[in-house]
């Protein structure tokens, strides 16, 4: 498993990545086949989002605190904010560019 940009965050990062991967592998296949009706998809997504929060929420917040501090210390927060303003990417891109 890869490292964090800050050594002190690597143990939390690995814990979080392992948690996410375990959840994601249980999510993806059923999510692909859950596309019967939009209502069913929403119900499934809500359940899975809640499950993710329950299993990985705590470690995510600890890791996020650590990495946010490190990002700031390296001066990357300014560059990241700039990139977010230039291209928020809140929605999936519709074609290869936009």
């Amino acid at each position: 498993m890869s490292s964090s940009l800050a050594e002190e965050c690597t143990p939390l990062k690995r814990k979080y990545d392992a948690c996410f991967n375990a959840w994601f592998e249980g999510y993806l296949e059923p999510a692909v086949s859950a596309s019967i009706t939009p209502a069913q998809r929403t119900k499934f997504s809500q359940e899975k989002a809640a499950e993710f929060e329950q299993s990985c929420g705590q470690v995510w917040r600890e890791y996020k605190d650590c990495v946010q501090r490190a990002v700031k210390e390296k001066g990357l927060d300014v560059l990241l904010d700039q990139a977010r303003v230039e291209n928020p990417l809140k929605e999936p891109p519709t074609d290869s560019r936009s």
Partner: protein
Amino acid sequence: MHYFSQLYNYDHPWSRVVIGMWHKYPNPHCSHVMSIDVVDRSIDPQTGIIRTERILGCKQKAPIWIVKLFGGSEDAFVREVSFVDPATQTATITSVNLSLSQFATCYESIRYSPSPDGKTTFKQTAEIQARVALWQSAANKLENWLVQRFEQNAHLGKLGFSDVLRQLWESRDQQQSA
């Protein structure tokens, strides 16, 4: 601007490729990627789309002229935003450089989608663009400053030499007439 694109099929079904996405690094073929951090992640409760924002840290052996000119360091960071949409079976990854972004941008887009034969199509495009407008304005400012300095110095040079000439010949003329 430079444009790059490639199309490729991976011999694995879409869901396996997308699970594999999170296991790509560390990778001996891509040893320049040193770190990966998730800085934001959300699951849309309506659509089930997972959005992930990450920062990748790379060690780049940049040519010495680049380091000297742009003051870059060995560490380069990239912002990456991905969307995994299980309903449409589409995964997109968009990346842009954070380091040296004031000089140039490398904007990369990747899309994984299922191909009819049970494989996964990978489409990658990249646009590499120097921020010419920014350079142009910096170059214009430098030119203006140089012109101003030159005009000032030319003026001072003229005054200075006029003084020298006057003093030289005034004193000699006085000696001769004496």
